[in-house]
């Protein structure tokens, strides 16, 4: 599939009503917060205030927003190196997320994790991950624990198309189907594994077929259309909650920026990048909101509010202290804690 083949299905939603409008506005808010957060993170990375590597999901926000809108607080999520969107959409505090990127004591992980290891267990966000596909079996095991403890909830594991060529993806599909575990596999297919086109390194018809081969029913959606993602995720999650068995959502989306915020994407043409930006999920949803009668002012207020919240988070993160250096020796292990050599 070429990058330009996924087009939104048109701005007007069949049978739109007030509840649906409110939901689309909520999606707009979620996506705007993610967008503003990541733009600020990339800017802070360029300024040397955020270190390491930042992997923006700009262009992909509809997947996080549409899926997480269907989750309860007790539902669980595992994420990837490109995980800010999942974290925020699952309900993690934006300021503590930003503080973690700045490496500060007020971050979720006290600055020990950074962007690639962000987690907020209080909202069931069990961690971004620096290793491709590594979050998948963790989600599967978390679901197994829920089942063993007779607790409600599902585990959602977000991963990219690149992860579908790793063994843990195949193993976990088989495992979740075999043990009938409440897992939603969400493949965020932006077409690139790092800087390589996934189609150049992948055989066969893709993630949905791979899931179905393991007995996991799958759906493919336009991941740039938050309403489509929402509808598909709602349907799949309802099936999971009813049956206790896994499902896979294959969301085809677009990564506007590079693999990292410092990747200039020399491997993509200007035409391709321009075409992909036409599938902006935030602009698309805004157009739909306008078509449904939402005022421009209301839509721009959403973006402005997100921008203000993020600016405040950046200012707070900038001003916050680092954890004292003894924290580098804490949270390692109980047995033998205090022994470093």
């Amino acid at each position, binding site marked *: 599939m070429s990058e330009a083949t996924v087009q939104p299905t048109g701005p007007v939603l069949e049978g739109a009503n007030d509840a649906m409008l409110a939901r689309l506005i909520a999606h707009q808010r979620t996506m705007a917060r993610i967008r503003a957060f990541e733009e600020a993170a990339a800017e802070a990375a360029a300024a040397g205030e955020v270190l390491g590597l930042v992997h923006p999901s700009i262009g992909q926000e509809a997947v996080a927003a549409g899926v997480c809108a269907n989750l309860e607080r007790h539902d669980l999520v595992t994420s990837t190196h490109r995980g800010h969107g999942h974290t925020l959409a699952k309900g993690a505090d934006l300021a503590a997320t930003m503080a973690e990127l700045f490496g500060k004591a007020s971050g979720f992980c006290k600055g020990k994790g950074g962007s690639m290891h962000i987690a907020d*267990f209080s909202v069931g966000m069990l961690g971004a991950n620096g290793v491709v596909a590594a979050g998948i079996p963790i989600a599967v095991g978390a679901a197994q624990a829920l089942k063993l403890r007779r607790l409600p909830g599902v585990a959602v594991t977000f991963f990219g198309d690149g992860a579908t060529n790793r063994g843990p993806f195949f193993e976990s599909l088989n495992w979740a189907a075999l043990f009938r575990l409440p897992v939603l596999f969400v493949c965020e297919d932006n077409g690139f594994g790092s800087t390589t086109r996934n189609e150049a390194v992948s055989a066969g018809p893709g993630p949905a077929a791979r899931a179905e081969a393991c007995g996991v029913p799958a759906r493919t959606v336009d991941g740039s259309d938050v309403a489509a993602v929402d509808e598909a995720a709602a349907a799949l999650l309802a099936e999971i909650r009813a049956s206790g068995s896994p499902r896979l959502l294959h969301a085809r989306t677009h990564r506007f920026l590079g693999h990292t915020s410092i990747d200039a994407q020399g491997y993509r043409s200007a035409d391709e990048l321009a075409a992909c930006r036409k599938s902006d999920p935030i602009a698309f949803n805004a157009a739909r909101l306008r078509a449904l009668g939402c005022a421009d002012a209301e839509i721009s207020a959403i973006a402005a509010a997100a921008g203000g919240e993020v600016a405040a988070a950046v200012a707070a993160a900038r001003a916050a202290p680092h954890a004292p250096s003894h924290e580098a020796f804490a949270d390692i292990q109980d047995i033998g804690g205090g022994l470093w050599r």
Partner: protein
Amino acid sequence: MALMTCQEAALAALAHEMQEDPTIWALGEDLGRGGVFGQYRGLQQRFGAERIVDTPISEATIMGAAVGAAMMGTRPVVEMRIADFALCAVDELVNQAAKARFMFGGQAKVPLVARHPMGTWKNLAAQHSQSLEAWWVHVPGLVVAAPATPADCAGLLKSSIRCDDPVVLLEHKDLWTYAAEVDEALPPVPLGVAECARDGRDLTLVTWSAARHLALAAADAAAATGIEVEVLDLRTLWPWDRGAVLGSVSRTRRLLVLHEAVQVAGFGAEIAATVAETLGSILAAPVRRLGAPRVPIAYAPPLEAVYRIDQGRVLATIQGLVRG
């Protein structure tokens, strides 16, 4: 007291823990029929297939699922079948289990036990025989234990299950049928505490796992020549009981470390270096290590024998250290 094998003691210990705590469960290949070494015999009938889980041959997901399940309030016992197969799940052990607590700033602990049946047994050759304890000791976040007796197999398994850290429990394949007297209560053995397996004044022999028995046999032979060897079984490799080692060497002023694993960069090097750094000025002889040559483990007995250390070599090394 009762006579039990390591297999019987470990089985009884796991059954006891599972009876006491419903969040404990085990997962791995062939557990329903009792595990490869009988260390799970009868447990699926007793606790059900949801708590003694027969898994596909998917080591990465066995370990990865255990990480997720451990972070979500259960205590998985992960069976890796053969220690060498655990290498198919290194990311899940090293990058996930060992680091989750730290990376997430203490939001989660990962209370799991990874059981690695290690060591040479039945000429299983290069991919079923390794002793890789040094790899795991090198990784912050992991506890590493290697019992050598039925009491320790049971007691360290209990402590490993109860502890909130990820523990790599190295159970030697050649010891499953080894029998000894045990306290029938199979009390937990604290992690990080060595056992003095034999008192002696002339030399401290530090060892663990199956090499404990080789060390004791060599110490007996040395005693017949008038040399009294103190044998310390570390039992836990991280954290290791440096107080016991340094205390013993302070008295004997001689150290020999003996292990089955490859000597190069083996864990014996850490002990030897620590003793040399700490007690170098009082030593009566240079510290010595005995480990395997850095060769893959061969199949044919005469070739496999190259890898093994025999009692004669241990005795000769002891005599060389004491008599100069």
